[in-house]
């Protein structure tokens, strides 16, 4: 290396660390630590044995145990909460994808009267203050004898994630060049085939990231289920988690195990798909 004449860039990388760079990296580390800490603390507390969790001074090194997880999952009706959450979330996301795909295709690719109006409606619906509408929703559900109904909850979550799904899919469809579709049609594809064989595969990353955000919204929802589904057998995991600490008093280790169980799918999906979605978007997108 020393025999070659160092280019300016090489010089820069080999230069000893300047104090400014050290400060920059240190700040970044501290900021990263602050943001990760609550997540880390949840995880580490969930693995602590009972004797090491309720201590005045926190214990940082301990022998991990999984007993808290069995306490958390051993709660009455745990599996019915899991099932309910899964039904509600997956149902809402799949319905939204289906309905949004149709709507966003029309908005992105077709010219028709009222298109702009529909875009505006979707935008406004995206900002709908659901948390503030719970009382009216309660009255409607009660009048129609639909309190404690999983289908109603699924339907509400579906409409909750729908506008966002339309909005993002519209962008993804618009990013697929019309030329591709035309080429397929010239090659003898029908319009439906062109959509299925050309646009749809290109949309996969878009569908993935869109459903990811829909999944997170529905999985996390709390206000509606709190108001509408008071009956325990029709509750979702969000309720289970908020009730946990009350029910178990000071069993923080088990409460943290419950939080971890609740958060883990979202964290995994988010971290995994985020990179994939972003990569897909940049790799597959066509500029202009």
């Amino acid at each position: 290396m020393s025999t070659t004449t160092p280019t300016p860039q090489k010089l820069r990388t080999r230069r000893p660390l300047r104090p400014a760079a050290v400060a920059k990296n240190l700040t970044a580390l501290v900021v990263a630590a602050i943001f990760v800490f609550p997540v880390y603390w949840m995880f580490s507390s969930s693995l602590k044995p009972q004797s090491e969790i309720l201590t005045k001074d926190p214990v940082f090194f301990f022998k991990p145990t999984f007993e808290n997880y069995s306490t958390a999952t051993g709660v009455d009706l745990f599996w019915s909460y899991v099932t309910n959450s899964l039904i509600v979330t997956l149902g809402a996301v799949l319905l939204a994808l289906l309905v949004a795909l149709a709507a966003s295709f029309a908005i992105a690719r077709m010219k028709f009267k009222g298109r702009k109006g529909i875009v505006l409606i979707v935008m406004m619906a995206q900002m709908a203050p659901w948390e503030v509408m719970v009382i009216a929703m309660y009255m409607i559900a009660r009048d129609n004898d639909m309190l404690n109904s999983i289908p109603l909850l699924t339907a509400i979550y579906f409409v909750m994630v729908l506008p966002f799904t339309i909005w993002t899919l519209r962008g993804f469809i618009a990013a697929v060049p019309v030329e591709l579709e035309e080429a397929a049609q010239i090659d003898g594809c029908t319009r439906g085939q062109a959509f299925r064989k050309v646009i749809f595969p290109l949309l996969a990353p878009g569908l993935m990231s869109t459903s990811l955000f829909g999944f997170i919204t529905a999985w996390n929802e709390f206000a509606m289920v709190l108001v509408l589904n008071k009956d325990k057998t029709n509750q979702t995991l969000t309720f289970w988690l908020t009730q946990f600490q009350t029910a178990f008093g000071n069993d923080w280790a088990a409460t943290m195990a419950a939080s971890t169980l609740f958060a883990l799918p979202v964290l995994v999906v988010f971290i995994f798909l985020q990179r994939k979605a972003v990569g897909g978007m940049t790799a597959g997108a066509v500029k202009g």
Partner: protein
Amino acid sequence: MTVDSQGTASAAPQDAPGRAAGKSQTPPPPSGAKESLRPPRGRRSLPSGLLPYLLVTPALLSMAVLLLYPLIRNVILSFQGVNKREMIRRETPWVGFENYTKLLGDPDFWSVVVRSLVVTAVNVALVMLIGTLVGMLLNRLGKKMRLVLSLALMFAWAMPIVASVTVFRWLFDEQFGVANWVMRSIGFSGYEQHNWFETGFSTLVIVTILLVWGSIPFVALNMYAALTTVGTELYEAAKMDGASGWRTFWSVVFPNLKPFFMITTFLEIIWIFKAFTQVYAMNQGGPDRSSETLPVFAYIEGMGQQHYGLAAAISILTIVMLLVAMSFYFRLILKQEDEQ
């Protein structure tokens, strides 16, 4: 359609191999030369008729039933005197503006309004300030540190709200919380068994920490993404002209990112103003209803006190306030849409 096929036909002779390849030319990357040859066209539309309306109908219908109708019902309910007794008897007597006049003359309502506005202002200011700083930090980091920091931000961002509220309750636990230990370690006295949820104010401080912690990743990561769109030439030019870092930010970076700043700020205003789970799950609006913000106030009045009509009026007033922020937001978005 004819225009389209003409367009492709006229472009084809340009590249002989493309023509030779003929039908196998499935995904033609739109090259610059080809693009410029074409007569300028707007959005090319496929033959339309009933089809677009058919495609849009399911979406519109479901939003009408489960969003528009509840909103209308909310308005109607706010003019009705539905309390516990009427609820059981399934009566809905009209009371005109009584719910509204009652609310507007109630000092408790006004203190909740002020509290909500202050919480929103403080939170949005903190989120935008720290979020921007972290975003700029991301932009100046090396590859590895940037990955570390964005991964950390991602964790905070992805954390489900209900789970993070639970964790924060544990962090600020009276007896065994880390927060008390940290305060003791730094050297403060009186943190042996400090109750962080003792007053409405202290509860809202914890809520603020939670909201800021949870909202910054969105702003910071988007800020970083936006910053990468500002060309490095601009920075270099500013540096050559002898501009300081501060000056560079205000005269080069900020004007370029102004739309981004504005949109994000209004988004945060809307999100934080209507935040329900963070406030409610933290302490149920307590102690003694002193940490209630407007959405929680509406919920407690309705479901807790069983004043359904009054609660509906509160939510309508909250929505009206939200609409003010939203109208700014929509104007910004529409402006951006037009520019694109």
